[in-house]
């Protein structure tokens, strides 16, 4: 149980952030449902957020980002909320006009 007694470092958090980022990218690439793509975007933003917060943490390094990282993470959270609202509105509009939510059929989005 050696790894349970060692303190975790910044690298571990960066690895988790990278994993969430990659799952988000794969989700965006493979899902056919518009809302699935939106959820992939949320995962990508979360992975980036973990990196910001980990670099800001005084727990790992002496020369950390400090409050800058925390505030950037807060801005990312707020902008993700805004992005989700607009993208959801566009998705609902698309659904109302075309009666489908499949992005593969969205090659004729002309309003």
């Amino acid at each position, binding site marked *: 149980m050696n790894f349970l007694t060692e303190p975790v470092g910044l690298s571990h958090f960066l690895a988790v952030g990278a994993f969430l980022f990659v799952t988000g990218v794969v989700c965006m*690439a493979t899902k056919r449902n518009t809302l699935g793509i939106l959820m992939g975007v949320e995962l990508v933003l979360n992975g980036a957020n973990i990196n910001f917060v980990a670099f800001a943490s005084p727990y790992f390094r002496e020369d950390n980002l*400090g409050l800058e990282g925390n505030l950037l993470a807060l801005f990312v959270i707020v902008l993700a909320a805004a992005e989700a609202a607009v993208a959801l509105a566009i998705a609902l509009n698309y659904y109302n006009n075309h009666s489908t939510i499949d992005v593969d059929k969205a090659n004729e989005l002309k309003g």
Partner: protein
Amino acid sequence: MTNFPLLLAAEINWHTVFFYLTSFIACGFALAMVVSSNVVRMAFFLVLSLAATSGLIFLTGAHFVGAMQLMIYVGGTVVLLIFGVMLTAQQAFISMKTKAGDWILALIVGGSLLALLTQIAFSVPAWRSSDYQARLQAEVTAAEEEIIAAMAADNRTELTAAEAAKLRPLLAKVKYGQPELTSQVGLGLVGVRVDKPELDSLGYSGYLLPFEIVSVHLLVVLVGAAYLARSKRSAVMQTPEGDAR
């Protein structure tokens, strides 16, 4: 780790344990989200993954950001997404299969990206360990050696009350301790840096202007979203001629 195992009941680093627990929950449900093709289940997995991510943010010491992650993301954004799922959840769209070619391409791209990023994350030696815990550990070791020397000089085997009182908070800090940041975020918004006082003299102006810009941006975006998301039927009901777009 310590010479006084009675004070430090187990040598397990609980920060590490909770890190692995929450990161496995976050990564596992993110993976389940990618694999699942049912959009309702995907929304549920997303909620769990984001909640576990907020646990990870708490573990870095950014308590305010973690709380905001729970409230805005899990409480707001995901509820919005779930409403979107419910509004469009017709039988044909709940479960849409992806073509095998898309899967293979995405997994190749994703796998190589993941390998690259993980290698980068572990390639810097200074990022692998925790400065804070190493420093605390050195402090504890120094205090323990001092106490052991005093005990050897007095020829006794028990700790005095004063020595135990000196050692206990240090050990508690090693086990649980990390810096508090919650109130510093609010001060950072108005330009007072508590964590880095040397920045105060350099014309540092804080984050009030970006904060205002973000809030106005959010307002504009929500108005635009409400405009975009009107359904046709309600537009017809508002204009009696039925001439609505």
